[in-house]
């Protein structure tokens, strides 16, 4: 099962590498959208520092949802997804591999770019470290929940817009704990920041257990 998971992930990453610019589009969106906020809100450093964690997190949510519809779309379009469903191997492993590839190709770049955005928002170094940490724990949650949404809306005319409506409400707890940790640390409450971080980790474990079977079931429903 692990071999299948890794094989699927390797294949998807290879496909992403062949279309490098396309794979980096969510990162571009992430940076452009984040850069618009100081222009819209005003360059006041104190304000930026206050809204920074929330803006980066919401930005990451939107960037993840933007790319998540691509997780199954091209395989669905050329019919290879149906062949994968017919395979005797468990579908959960396939979903896991696809989620892993999605996170490595779009989630991880966001995590790596977030310190830069943190600097743009005048965040101090400890807060930036915490931001990177929360995003590292949080972006896999987004990929996992996004996989469920992408599988449910597979092949629908308005699929891309629907994913936003379906998945974003479910990501609210991750958003609360993720930004909560950064804000708590920035206002001098390291204990509370740690509690938020633990809850975010618990959320990741729960999603890791629940989302792949749900996405696999959704794929079966969609390709019935």
């Amino acid at each position: 099962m692990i071999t299948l998971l890794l094989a699927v992930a390797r294949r998807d990453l290879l496909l992403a590498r062949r279309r490098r610019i396309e794979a980096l589009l969510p990162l571009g969106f992430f940076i452009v959208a984040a850069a618009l906020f100081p222009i819209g809100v005003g360059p006041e450093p104190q304000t930026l520092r206050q809204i920074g964690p929330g803006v980066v997190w919401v930005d990451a949510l939107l960037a993840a949802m933007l790319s998540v519809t691509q997780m199954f779309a091209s395989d669905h379009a050329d019919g290879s997804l149906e062949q994968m469903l017919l395979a005797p191997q468990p579908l959960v492993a396939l979903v896991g591999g696809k989620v892993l590839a999605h996170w490595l190709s779009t989630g991880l770049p966001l995590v790596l770019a977030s310190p830069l955005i943190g600097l743009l928002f005048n965040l101090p170094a400890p807060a930036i470290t915490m931001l990177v940490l929360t995003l590292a724990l949080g972006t896999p949650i987004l990929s996992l929940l996004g996989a469920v949404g992408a599988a449910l809306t597979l092949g629908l005319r308005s699929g891309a817009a629907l994913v936003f409506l379906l998945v974003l409400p479910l990501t609210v707890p991750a958003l609360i704990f993720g930004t909560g940790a950064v804000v708590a640390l920035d206002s001098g409450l390291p204990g509370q920041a740690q509690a938020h971080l633990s809850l975010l980790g618990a959320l990741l474990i729960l999603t890791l257990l629940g989302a792949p079977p749900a996405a696999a079931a959704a794929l079966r429903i969609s390709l019935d």
Partner: protein
Amino acid sequence: MTLRLTTFAAPSRFYAAAGLLVPWCWAATLLFGLAGLTVGFAVAPTDFQQGEAYRIIFIHVPAAWLSMLIYLVMAFWAALGWMLNARMAAMYARALAPTGALFTLIALWTGALWGKPTWGTWWVWDARLTSEFILLLMYGGYIALTEAIDDPRRAANAGALLALVGVVNVPIIYFSVRWWNTLHQGSSISLTAAPRMASTMLTAMLLMTLSFWAYSFAVALMRARAIVLEQEADTDWVRQQARREDR
């Protein structure tokens, strides 16, 4: 004909039975509604802190209760329809969704109307308000997903999966009361502690809840009948029904 648990799983029998039930549900809605409004607005005493403004509780709290309950009921029927491949259960789940969304909207709206005189603001980003708002978005997502899929079977099953995923959120709504403490007052009714409200207020609230409940049954049954006719349009019994109703 012997009555079994599955008797009304047949769309034709459900259609007939629901048709008989609907007038009674409407009657109960009116009866309990009138009684509840009378008790709530004429009998119940004025609150010494909030004055007359508190009386919106008789609409606000029952609507909020039902908004959450209907989501659970909807997820239950949707899951049943998915697991047992029972089409009628799936149709009933779809029929419930707009009513649940309506109650969520009413709860939010009356909450805003209540918040203005008591807190001095239409809206605060408090835990319960926020989770009720998320509930509205989840109803919206369910309705949008089931409407976007043309094949009724896929629509029903996809909706069921989404509703089950969303059910995880309903306990969060409930426990959020304890998670964050904000300026929202605590739950007005608790099952463990003795109620601190005047008993007439409680009576009015329960009567309004019964009224809303009957309304939900009436509307959901009517909507389910319409969905049955739509999905069974090419069967014999629907054609006969149409001929009978034409006459």
